[in-house]
């Protein structure tokens, strides 16, 4: 079993514009209504990169910044686990279109931004951190894979860690093959449960995780509130909504998220 504390959290998605304004919706105090998620240009990046930053980078950096700030630690302290299913579909589509054209030339800038770890790189450059950062993907199970990986790393290394997961719809013709209904991003700052958190704020929640064989029942891990429930299958990162509800309400919960041939069992305690 892995035990970690959650010190910071953020969410950005339709009708969920950052943590503070999302808490009433995640706790059922306020009804969810659709509103487009518009992440700001990342202030952490230099002007040129800021202008160029696409939706995916903006999404990830917005939630990462809010979560780390909430944890009360400097932005460049945590290690990073970045999880995304689709990667940057806008960049991928542009490269594939130009390659399918007769001349077949690729833009060098698009090419180096096509790597899956481009988002992690932008964050690390933006905050000036030389800490380790990994970048993973596992299709619909990306949230569960990233959460398990992040918790294992924070617990074993005994260090603060930023888990950031994000996905956005890809342009056609890609979206028809891999439907992503809307942009969504979640970030959590974790600390190992058995290490004093020093200057950081007290935990928002405590997580206990384990992996077990056998897929979890469909819907057993769906969010409890109707708004979040309507979002949970529209974006791989939205699979984090059940956990976010528990953190927002400060209540205990227990559920299991599907991952590959099995499931990640999550226990949340206040």
């Amino acid at each position: 079993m892995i035990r970690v504390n959650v010190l910071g959290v953020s969410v950005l998605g339709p009708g969920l514009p950052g943590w503070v304004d999302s808490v009433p919706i995640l706790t059922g105090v306020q009804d969810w209504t659709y509103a487009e998620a518009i992440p700001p240009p990342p202030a952490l990046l230099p002007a040129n990169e800021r202008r160029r930053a696409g939706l995916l980078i903006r999404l990830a950096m917005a939630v990462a910044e809010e979560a780390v700030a909430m944890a009360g630690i400097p932005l460049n302290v945590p290690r990073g686990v970045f999880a995304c299913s689709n990667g940057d579909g806008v960049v991928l589509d542009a490269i594939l279109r130009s390659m399918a054209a007769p001349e077949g030339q690729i833009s060098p800038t698009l090419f180096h931004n096509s790597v899956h770890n481009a988002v992690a790189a932008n964050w690390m450059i933006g905050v000036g951190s030389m800490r380790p950062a990994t970048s993973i993907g596992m299709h619909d199970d990306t949230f569960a894979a990233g959460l398990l990986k992040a918790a294992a790393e924070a617990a074993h290394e005994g260090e603060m860690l930023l888990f950031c997961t994000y996905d956005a719809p890809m342009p056609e013709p890609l979206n028809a093959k891999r439907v992503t209904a809307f942009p969504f991003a979640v970030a959590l700052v974790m600390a190992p449960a058995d290490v004093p958190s020093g200057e950081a704020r007290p935990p928002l929640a405590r997580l206990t995780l384990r992996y077990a064989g056998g897929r979890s029942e469909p819907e057993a891990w769906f969010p409890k509130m109707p708004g979040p429930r309507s979002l949970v299958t529209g974006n791989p990162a939205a699979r984090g909504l059940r956990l976010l509800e528990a953190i927002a309400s400060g209540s205990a919960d227990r559920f299991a998220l599907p991952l590959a041939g099995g499931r990640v069992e999550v226990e949340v305690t206040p």
Partner: protein
Amino acid sequence: MRPLAIRALSAISAIGRGAEPMFDALSNRRGGLSPCDFAGVTSGWIGRVPGVESHAVPPRLAHFDCRNNRLADMALHTDGFAARVAEARARLGADRIGVVVGTSTSGVGALEDAYVARDPVSGALPPDFDFVHTHDLSSLASYVREALDLAGPALTVSAACASSARCFVDAAHFIETGVCDAVVVGGADSLCGMTLRGFASLGLVSPRACRPCDTARDGVSIGEAAGFALLEPLWTNSGRTAVPGLAVLGTGSSSDAHHMSAPHPEALGAVLAMRAALADAGLAPEAIDYVNLHGTGTRANDAMEDRAVMTVFGSGVPGSATKGWTGHTMGSSGILELAISALCIEHDMVPGCLAVDEVDPSFEALVVTVNEHRTVRRVISNSFGFGGINCSLILGRTS
């Protein structure tokens, strides 16, 4: 970290399928590069794996069929790897063995073909194109998991050219926290138009076979490779290993925080990764017998890496790059070069850089350009990638 035994190991590249042909090519200094004839690209040289076109994946996994998964499948069925995993599965249980594998471009080659075959009116991709089982990043981890009948946690690491090195770090976290009792690590990256044209667009492809560390080096040769290792803690089981006593002794990872594709000018990220791996293994720099360089053959990478190696090891530890044999196999270079490092340990040999006329005179660290027979107990192998990710792995004998 505590040493992780390498129970099984396999790798395929342009210099052969498995340890024996690979060692034969290294010992006889026979490279695997040839002029590029792939995906309509005719400039530069490539390291192409023979037989991928005719290799068939098992019928039950036919929906995964693409060049990248064929390459992975070939590696799984090399040097008895799948059989060794089956033994571990019988002993530990399928859901106790994880799959943490790396790739930079997954099956994008299949997606490139699908874009060419778009419907001329609607622009739609062909109806029979299977996105999730070919191009999607999960494809590799899912393929390996299903091919080996495993049920543990599975995920794909995609961190550019450090992908299959970084997955050792991620797998170690799963083992150390008890999530898994063993993990299949490694990865695959296959030739594709995107990588060939992308590196060409950056002006980083050599017009001839690449010559890492040469004073006249002028870029990379793109290659393809796949390889896998079965990691299991030594502290729970003292069973046999791929090479007697072979284990991963330490891992180190860092970020440059500098630029998307240019290395850190002072090599700080590479220095941090190597020092982190040494600290993780509890070893002093003097304990390392050979540095397997990332050594891509670009002006900037090799100069940066020389500076980093000099900073950490000084000029006394021999180093070389093996990409002159295999080409730069992108995200699979970490596992391929770990397999090469295992051969160096098994045979007490350091393979000198291939086709080097003159080592860059500005280099200060010790670069070997002929094969040397000397005691090799521990190797550090470097992998660096776009986005400024650096990973170093230390491999050695524990007995």
